[in-house]
């Protein structure tokens, strides 16, 4: 039944091998750390180092979350290992006025945006839905599990920003699998028609749980954009500078009133779909091995060191800081208890109607 499309298959095979295989792919740093494009993306040395620091920190945190889940401190956790550049590079390109609409795998982006990881992780701890960080204060919408549904929220917010005449954009994260949903399409088309300032950021990590890209779509995802009448760009999602550059350009474009952009960041999910998943059931060791040398952190570290922007001391400080911060996060996560059951009734409506008040009493007694 499955007609493996040669285009999609070769895309996955070639991705990252050499740039010329991939005429459309934006890449500034090759997997071996050498510059293959203009790496002056307008960032200061300190900012360049900051990108590395954030990737090291978030990876360390990701690892810790896996451990926390194994130890029963989180109910389930979807790791982003391998996707650090895609998330850090894109989130770093936004300003404080912009609003992010994540999917469910964007802890790294959340951290970059200043969301408290402990509050974020309450979702995976099973103590609250969505966050429960403040989405309005952080300008980071709640974790959104129904695939692709958050895309339309981002478009709606962007329509509002445009109505308000604000120079701000929305950026929404979603996966390759999400592009098959009707909501992706309705969102993209609405964004185009209303000229909404939104960046549609697809982390194409090659898999949607066990379903490979070629079962998800028969054409490169970035090419969808032309059909809606806005630009689509494919970027090496493991090249943090390239991701930063295309996202910055798309966000500027949006804020300047030029409408949406679709970014397809080619990356790879090195871990399982979630801690509940056994990815050895559907993908090969060879595929994993082929992606290992394209690691986003190793590549960028080497580039920065070679360029003289980062030295050994800096690298060590990153590791040290990560260790420390993650220890604090762990302690706070482990320390958080379930909310009182009354909260089930508190937030359904601004004011609970009498029938719900009765149910609250039924559940909790007259307390």
């Amino acid at each position: 039944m499955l007609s493996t499309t040669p285009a999609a298959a070769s895309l996955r095979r070639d991705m990252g091998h050499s740039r010329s295989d991939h005429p459309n792919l934006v890449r500034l740093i090759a997997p071996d750390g050498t510059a293959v494009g203009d790496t002056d993306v307008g960032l200061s040395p300190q900012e360049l180092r900051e990108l590395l620091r954030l990737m090291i920190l978030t990876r360390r945190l990701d690892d810790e979350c896996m451990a926390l889940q194994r130890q029963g401190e989180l109910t389930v956790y979807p790791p982003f290992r391998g996707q650090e550049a895609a998330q850090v590079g894109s989130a770093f390109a936004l300003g404080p006025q912009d609003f992010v609409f994540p999917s469910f795998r964007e802890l790294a982006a959340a951290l970059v945006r200043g969301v408290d990881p402990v509050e974020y992780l309450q979702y995976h701890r099973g103590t609250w839905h969505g966050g429960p960080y403040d989405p309005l204060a952080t300008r980071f919408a709640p974790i959104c599990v129904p695939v692709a549904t958050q895309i339309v929220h981002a478009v709606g917010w962007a329509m509002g920003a445009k109505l308000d005449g604000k120079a701000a954009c929305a950026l929404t994260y979603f996966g390759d699998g999400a592009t098959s949903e009707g909501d992706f399409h309705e969102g993209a088309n609405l964004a185009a028609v209303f000229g909404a300032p939104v960046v549609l950021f697809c982390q194409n990590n090659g898999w949607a749980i066990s379903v490979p890209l070629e079962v998800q779509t028969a054409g490169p995802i970035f090419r969808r954009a032309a059909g809606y009448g806005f630009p689509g760009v494919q970027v090496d999602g493991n090249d943090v500078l390239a991701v930063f550059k295309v996202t910055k350009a798309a966000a500027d474009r949006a804020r300047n009133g030029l409408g949406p952009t679709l970014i397809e960041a080619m990356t790879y999910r090195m871990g399982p779909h979630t801690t509940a998943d056994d990815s050895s059931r559907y993908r090969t060791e060879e595929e994993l091995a082929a992606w290992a040398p394209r690691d986003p952190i190793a590549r960028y570290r080497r580039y920065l060191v070679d360029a003289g922007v980062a030295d050994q001391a800096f690298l060590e400080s990153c590791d040290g800081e990560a260790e420390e911060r993650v220890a604090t996060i762990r302690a706070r996560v482990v320390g958080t208890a379930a909310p009182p059951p009354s909260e089930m009734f508190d937030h359904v409506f601004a004011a609970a109607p009498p029938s719900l008040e009765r149910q609250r009493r039924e559940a909790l007694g007259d307390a």
Partner: protein
Amino acid sequence: MPEVTMVGALNRALRDALAGDPRALVFGEDVGRLGGVFRVTDGLQAEFGKERVFDTPIAEAGIAGACVGLSLAGFRPVAEMQFDGFSYPALDQVISHVAKYRMRTRGIASMPIVIRIPSFGGIRGKEHHGDSPETYYVHTAGLKVVVPSGALDAYRLLSLAIADPDPVIFLEPKARYWSKEDGELGVEGPGIGEARVVREGADCALIAYGTMVSRCLDAAGRLADEGIDARVLDLRSLVPLDLEALGTAARETGRMVVVHEAARTVGMGAEIAARIMEEAFDYLQAPVMRVTGYDTPYPPASLEQHWLPSVERICDAARKAVAY
């Protein structure tokens, strides 16, 4: 006192909301230049501009989802789904987000959304143009659901719905769009969550909403001729439900008939029967009767009069309840 149709009253409520709250927006399919297929939004785009009153592509999930994003941006979206049967593509966004966003964000993110849906049958409409979608919404915790039965209350309920901090599904009974009422438009009167006795009566109570309220009044008239004194209760608000009013009617009459167009199984009639039992079991002199649409898809126009609750069916049920 001026006479107004339900369409006119709804139009005025939207106009007053747009004029009174700069954050209110009206959008949907054909609501702009055309003024909506039922003209409920007539003239609003001309008056308030294309930025605040606008047409969308045909994308119901997109419309509902945009409401969520616009709410986060501080707007008050008033969206239209063109017909009951075309509100279903938006159900996922409504169930998974519109209804749950406040809960998910622990009350931080309000969803002051109104989704207007011309609903119910009785206008000889085509397939998908006569559905009664209330159960889907009423069962979804986090939504309020209201249904006006006449023009004045339509103004009141829509104004209150737009002012409400929570999402309100606003079901407009198409068959009552051209019904007229005399009186001043205003929001004074029963709020969301309050039912209204539209006819007093001591022998039994007819419980209805939307189009069926006037049909119950007709039935009550006929029953009066037979010596049966039927009370008619207009629910107005399906969520929250006025348990007080239901309990009172049950205790005072002991004989209850619930009337709605929706298919019977897990329709509002089931909920009301269950609630009445919970509220007033000892007062019940007869089982709560349900006069409803049947458990079939809404039929073609030529058969709808056999499907919709008729005055005769309502009277029959009331007679049975009284004779029980």
